[in-house]
């Protein structure tokens, strides 16, 4: 359990500025400056606060919920100060799409410079160095392959399909279950997913005919337009931010109605409803900080909410008492009731049992009772 998530994350590609070689400090800086300081990812729906600091909308909304200040400079702030930053969003989108290409060129350049004669020993050392980045876990067979990122953005329609084909055929293997051709490094996740069709990046990689590649490229462009329009229509009616609710003054029925209004599930208790509605308002409003063409659809948001709740319930399974004193205070009534209920039962038990078990010994019975009392004191 403890190792699993680590391996899972190291197997997936977690990007960060140190993907770029040390010599390319400016690129590291550029990559770092387009990342949210809270989650470390490239900005998603970047927003600025009054102080000018920029974060992902979801991240900063969560942080402000806990403490109403800018996480970077501690200047007091609140949700009404959040402004979306479309220019930053465009810059991040541009970088997101070109990052893999720049990274590849950069690493190629680095390799060329460090090994002018292309001696095999130096190549292997470069590969070894890159092993740190989790996505190069498969053993690359060609020098180009070592630079290939699993990121589909790297092999967009514009990149040379010739090269992609070589790499693709080099590290493709047959899935032992469904016999489909799958990339070596994706075999595990492919099997874990019940041999469902490989991700779009795999499809892109496995294509072999240039004609098909062209077709894919066109359908990609056309699809985007079509889905963009569709999304716009879906969103047209309801793109107003949701207001926050003051749950304390609402009756159970009213809290439930809030969920019903948003067509959200009403399972669980009042606390679950409040948490669900709060999260929904948060991700809904954060989604609106994106440019309309970047926004998620309502069904995507619903899926996100569901995943969030699943994660929470998993974490909740081992109940953690945050504040022992507070917990004791909150549950004092219940503890008292339990103690009161336990006391007479105990004495009755000992009274009814004592005559049968050890009738003559009065002293022992007293001793037993004392022990019980001690237990009760510990509980209290």
């Amino acid at each position, binding site marked *: 359990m*403890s*190792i699993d*998530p*680590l391996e*899972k*994350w*190291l197997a997936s590609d*977690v990007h*960060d500025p*140190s993907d770029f070689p040390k010599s390319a400090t400016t690129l590291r800086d550029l990559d770092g400056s387009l990342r949210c*300081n*809270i*989650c*470390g*990812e490239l900005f998603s729906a970047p927003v600025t606060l009054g102080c000018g600091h920029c974060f992902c909308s979801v*991240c900063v909304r*969560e*942080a402000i919920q*806990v*403490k109403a*200040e800018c*996480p*970077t400079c*501690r200047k007091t702030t609140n949700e009404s100060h959040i402004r979306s930053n479309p220019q930053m969003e465009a810059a991040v989108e541009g970088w997101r799409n070109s990052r893999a290409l720049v990274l590849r060129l950069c690493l190629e350049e680095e390799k060329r410079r460090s090994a002018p004669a292309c001696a095999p020993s130096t190549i292997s050392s470069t590969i070894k160095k890159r092993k*740190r*980045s*989790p996505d190069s876990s498969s053993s690359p067979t060609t020098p180009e392959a070592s630079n290939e990122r699993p990121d589909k953005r790297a092999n967009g329609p514009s990149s040379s399909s010739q090269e992609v084909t070589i790499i693709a055929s080099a590290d493709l293997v047959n899935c032992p279950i469904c016999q489909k051709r799958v990339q070596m490094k994706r075999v595990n996740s492919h099997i874990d997913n019940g041999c469902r069709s490989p991700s779009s990046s795999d499809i892109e990689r496995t294509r072999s005919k240039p004609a098909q590649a062209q077709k894919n490229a066109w359908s990609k462009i056309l699809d985007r337009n079509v889905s963009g329009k569709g999304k716009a229509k879906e969103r047209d009616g309801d793109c107003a931010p949701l207001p926050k609710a003051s749950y304390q003054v609402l009756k159970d029925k009213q809290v439930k109605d809030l969920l019903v209004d948003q067509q959200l599930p009403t399972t669980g208790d009042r606390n679950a409803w409040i948490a669900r509605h709060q999260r929904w308002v948060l991700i809904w409003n954060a989604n609106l900080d994106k440019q309309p063409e970047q926004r998620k659809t309502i069904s995507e948001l619903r899926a996100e909410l569901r995943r*969030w709740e699943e*994660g*929470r319930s*998993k*974490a909740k399974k081992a109940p953690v*008492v*945050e*504040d*022992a004193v507070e917990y004791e205070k909150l549950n004092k009534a219940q503890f008292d009731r339990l103690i009161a209920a336990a006391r007479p039962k105990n004495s009755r038990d000992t009274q009814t049992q004592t005559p049968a078990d050890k009738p003559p010994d009065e002293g022992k019975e007293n001793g037993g009772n004392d022990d019980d009392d001690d237990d009760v004191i510990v509980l209290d």
Partner: protein
Amino acid sequence: MAGIASRRLAKELKEIHTQGCPVGIQLLSADNFEEWHLSLEVMGDSQYQGEVFALKFRFEPQYPISAPAVQFMVTDKYKSPVHPHVYSNGHICASILGTEWSPVLSVIGVCVTLQSMLASCKKKERPPDNDRYVRHAPDNPKQTRFHYHDDTV
């Protein structure tokens, strides 16, 4: 939820591996995304010359929105530093680990802050209420509501 914490920690770990730690700080273990151990040494002229301490970080799924639980490890090999803000059980009274935590802080950031807290110490002594606190202290220092009174050290 847990995903965000793991991703963020994975990035921090990667940065430690590629860039290395600041002087005096070393990663002892980071086998999962729940508990990490780091060693801490105060460099240069200080009250703690030649002493090496170990820090234990415990992360919740809400990290980095919620602060990690940080304490000095007290084992056969490591001792808790004698410092007016550090209890003998390793618990630390530092506002950045409680009310002043900010999600932009990181594991290395916390280590550097604690390093400078030790470096600026003038007199080695335990907090005045050490015995009373240690007797009743919870296992997790995050459950203690510290009263941050002194911002000189």
